[in-house]
């Protein structure tokens, strides 16, 4: 192939795991190379084997019982054959990994600076003091303010974005030649995601590091890698320069994947404007919580009595929801969007304010008075694993609201559940299956069937698709909009993904710090955002066009300069 030795060379890699239902082939004859300073995006849906490849590069499969064949060379080390100490000399020193979930990836008992210093000391044999200085240096480089002091903080004292920066700092500690990033921004808000990706980009140009970016998000790949490898079922489907793969994909699978990505610029499925009467109306709705000790994420305020900080999760929200419409609610984590959703269906009692549903104020109603309204107000939860009882069959879970209604006999309930299962695209004879036998998308369909069972008027969907792959996401979104037409449902669609919300909503509310900062028709909000926060959110959304992604990054860098200057001045 090339004259010079590649930094990473993977040839005919096969990884097999033993599972209860026989051996599973996670990676099936994959070959690729990565030269020094190059960047490659490894893209695929969950189960495609992309993370397994990333782990194998550092020999992290060892001890897991996986059966690995082929060859993997990283910076001259034969990873599959190398001795344990040879491998340790590679890990963290010449090839470093950035993990997906920065909270669980850091040791909760150790100060962040100490964890980074330990890695540096192990590989360089430096003194404790020198390694600590290096830790502060890299923390400062990744943009942790007041790094010398913050190095003594523990992971739980950092926000999600700062934890991810800290993890990147750890990767930088020994100036590696290769950075492997496994879904580095999946757990983060869109604005923080943009910051982290920009940071990775800057570091790469600065240090000439090679980057292997593993992600399910084609938008993340667009602006951050030179080449892309699309994986499916452990095999390479298509590979090439990023502009080519995203612009003119040859393979059907890549085209399908691209088509499923919700876009900010694509056509909208929904004709704007449902003009029904007002179904639910909330006025000056508030929900306050006593703030957690010490650190409070949102601005709190000292309560008059007790002197305890207060967290205002929802802080004076007023809005009307019209019959038959879909209201999208977007916001970053901690903006109060989930609390608002729970208030709308009265799963949470508001601290103050009014909730009028078809003429009745439910805000402070007792559980007994709420009873007749429960069936009208339903909710679909984000995590279908956690919101289904793992010890009950999915049929029983869906039947609960039917039985709660009282009346129908056993066989009738059984029949209705069968119909519901069929309606959400599952088989009626799956009544006796358990949640763990289902995929993520199927479980979310069960969640939807359960919400649908009592024939509600309003369903609040709280991040219903954020745990799903893009193609599954598209199917579930389509299902929801079909059901809406069929049953005359009113939907509140809560999500942090601006593109998904745009796709499904008639009107959109943008939330920040417990308040609605902008509310309008989806077309208005996305085409002509009025609030600067909305504009910032929209600017941070990854785009699929690499050239456009570069332009946007430059624009963000411009925006950051005055910020830095003003920070220096103050």
């Amino acid at each position: 192939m090339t004259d010079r030795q590649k930094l990473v060379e993977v040839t005919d890699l096969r990884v097999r795991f033993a599972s209860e239902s026989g051996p599973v082939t996670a990676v099936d004859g994959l070959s690729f190379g990565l030269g020094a300073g190059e960047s490659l995006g490894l893209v695929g849906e969950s189960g495609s084997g992309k993370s397994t490849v990333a782990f194998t590069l550092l020999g992290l499969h060892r001890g897991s019982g996986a059966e690995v064949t082929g060859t993997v060379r990283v910076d001259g080390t034969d990873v599959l054959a190398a001795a344990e100490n040879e491998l340790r000399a590679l890990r963290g020193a010449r090839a470093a990994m950035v993990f997906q979930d920065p909270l669980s990836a850091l040791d909760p008992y150790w100060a962040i600076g100490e964890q980074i210093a330990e890695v540096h000391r192990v590989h360089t044999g430096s003194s404790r003091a020198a390694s600590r200085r290096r830790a502060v240096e890299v923390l400062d480089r990744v943009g942790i303010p007041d790094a010398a002091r913050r190095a003594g903080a523990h992971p739980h004292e950092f926000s999600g974005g700062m934890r991810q920066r800290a993890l990147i700092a750890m990767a930088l500690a020994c100036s590696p030649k290769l950075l492997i990033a496994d879904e580095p921004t999946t757990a983060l808000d869109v604005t923080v995601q943009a910051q982290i990706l920009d940071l990775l980009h800057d570091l790469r140009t600065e240090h000439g590091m090679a980057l292997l970016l593993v992600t399910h998000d084609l938008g993340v790949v667009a602006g951050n890698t030179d080449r892309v490898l699309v994986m499916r079922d452990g095999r390479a489907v298509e590979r090439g320069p990023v502009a080519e793969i995203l612009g003119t994909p040859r393979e059907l699978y890549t085209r399908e994947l691209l088509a499923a990505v919700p876009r900010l610029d694509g056509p909208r499925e929904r004709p704007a404007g449902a003009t029904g009467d007002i179904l639910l109306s909330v006025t000056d709705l508030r929900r306050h919580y006593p703030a957690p000790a010490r650190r409070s994420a949102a601005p709190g305020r000292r309560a008059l009595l007790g002197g305890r900080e207060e967290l205002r999760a929802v802080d004076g929200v007023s809005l009307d929801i019209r019959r038959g419409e879909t209201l999208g609610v977007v916001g970053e984590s901690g903006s109060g969007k989930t609390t608002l959703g729970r208030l709308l269906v009265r799963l949470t009692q508001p601290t103050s304010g009014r909730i009028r549903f078809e003429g009745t104020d439910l805000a402070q109603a007792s559980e007994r008075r709420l009873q007749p309204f429960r069936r009208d107000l339903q909710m679909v939860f984000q995590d279908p694993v956690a919101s289904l009882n793992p010890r009950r069959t999915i049929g029983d879970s869906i039947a609960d609201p039917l039985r709660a209604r009282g009346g129908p006999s056993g066989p009738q309930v059984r029949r209705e559940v069968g119909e519901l299962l069929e309606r959400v695209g599952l088989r009626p004879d799956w009544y006796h299956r358990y949640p763990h036998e289902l995929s993520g998308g199927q479980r979310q369909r069960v969640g939807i069937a359960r919400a649908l069972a009592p024939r509600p008027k309003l369903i609040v969907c709280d991040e219903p698709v954020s745990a799903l792959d893009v193609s599954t996401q598209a199917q579930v979104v389509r299902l929801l909009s079909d059901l809406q037409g069929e049953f005359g449902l009113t939907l509140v669609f809560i999500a942090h993904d601006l593109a998904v919300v745009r796709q499904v909503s008639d009107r959109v509310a943008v939330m920040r710090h417990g308040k609605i900062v902008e509310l309008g028709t989806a077309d208005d909000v996305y085409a002509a955002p009025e609030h600067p926060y909305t504009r910032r959110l929209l600017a941070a959304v990854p785009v699929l066009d690499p050239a456009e992604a570069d332009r946007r990054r430059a624009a963000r860098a411009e925006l950051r300069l005055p910020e830095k200057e003003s920070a220096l001045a103050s």
Partner: protein
Amino acid sequence: MIRFLLRRTVSTAAVLLVMSAVVYLVFYAAPHDPAVLVCGKGCDGTRLAVVRHKLGTDLPVWEQYGNFLRGLVAGRTFDSGNDVTRCAAPCLGYSFQTDQPVLQMITQRIPVDLSLTLGAMVIWLLLGVGTGLLSALRRGRLVERALTTLTLAGMATPVFLVGLLVLMLFCASLQWMPFPTYTAFTDDPAQWAANLVLPWFSLALVISAAYARMTRSSLLETLAEDHIRTNRAYGLSERRIVLGHALRGALVPVLTMLAIDVGQILGGAMLTESVFGFDGLGRLLVTSVNQIDLPVVVGATLFAGFFVVIANAAADLLYALADPRVSLA
């Protein structure tokens, strides 16, 4: 920290108050008249009335309880007219059967349980955590199977059996050491330790089995966590990972278990005390229950409860020290 101590003191007092009330009610409602027992044989009606009056058992239960509480602060005087018994504050009651203040009977015996428990604790922690560590690191190998079998056997063996066996072996058959008798630490530290070695090991051997299992499962769980994977991905040695990163998190649940055990055993290790003939709180409680010496029962029970509450407060304190995410509030 000060808030924590203050809150804990108040809640401890509240727990003990409720406990004392319940114990009082249960035992004083029992169909035994303490006066009859104190009065002895050949007791006639007039004499019994005098004794009752002295003991205060002629009063309604709530008044008796009130006197008990008042005695804690002000001391008590049991007076039948011609025969006066004083019990200085803090008076936890007076045992007329042994003619001693209850508090004195208990404080005399506390050093026995303190020595027994804390010494055994050191051994069972070393033994249990060590075994657990070893079997977690040698998972699936012969060493682990052997250790698992041993710990299961340990859990299934009652302490009196182990105690009797070591006594028969070391003291009777081999005659390596004399039968233990408790010697106070302040009298002769060497003798204190020599006499406690067998009880320590008997108690620790049995208890350590549970710690071995707990440490093993907790360590395996911690080793499967994401931050351990990070350690591996950054080239740390297995030894550094286990001792530096995994063990600390793994020992947190062990701490909870330790607090419960120490609190309980401090309040009386009846079987161990009995086998080795030590006069501790456990035996005191058993004897007083058998002889229906109610003031002693109440006092000993309260002390047992006190130790449990204190041990748990200590565990919370250690929690906060061990885990930066836990704050004392």
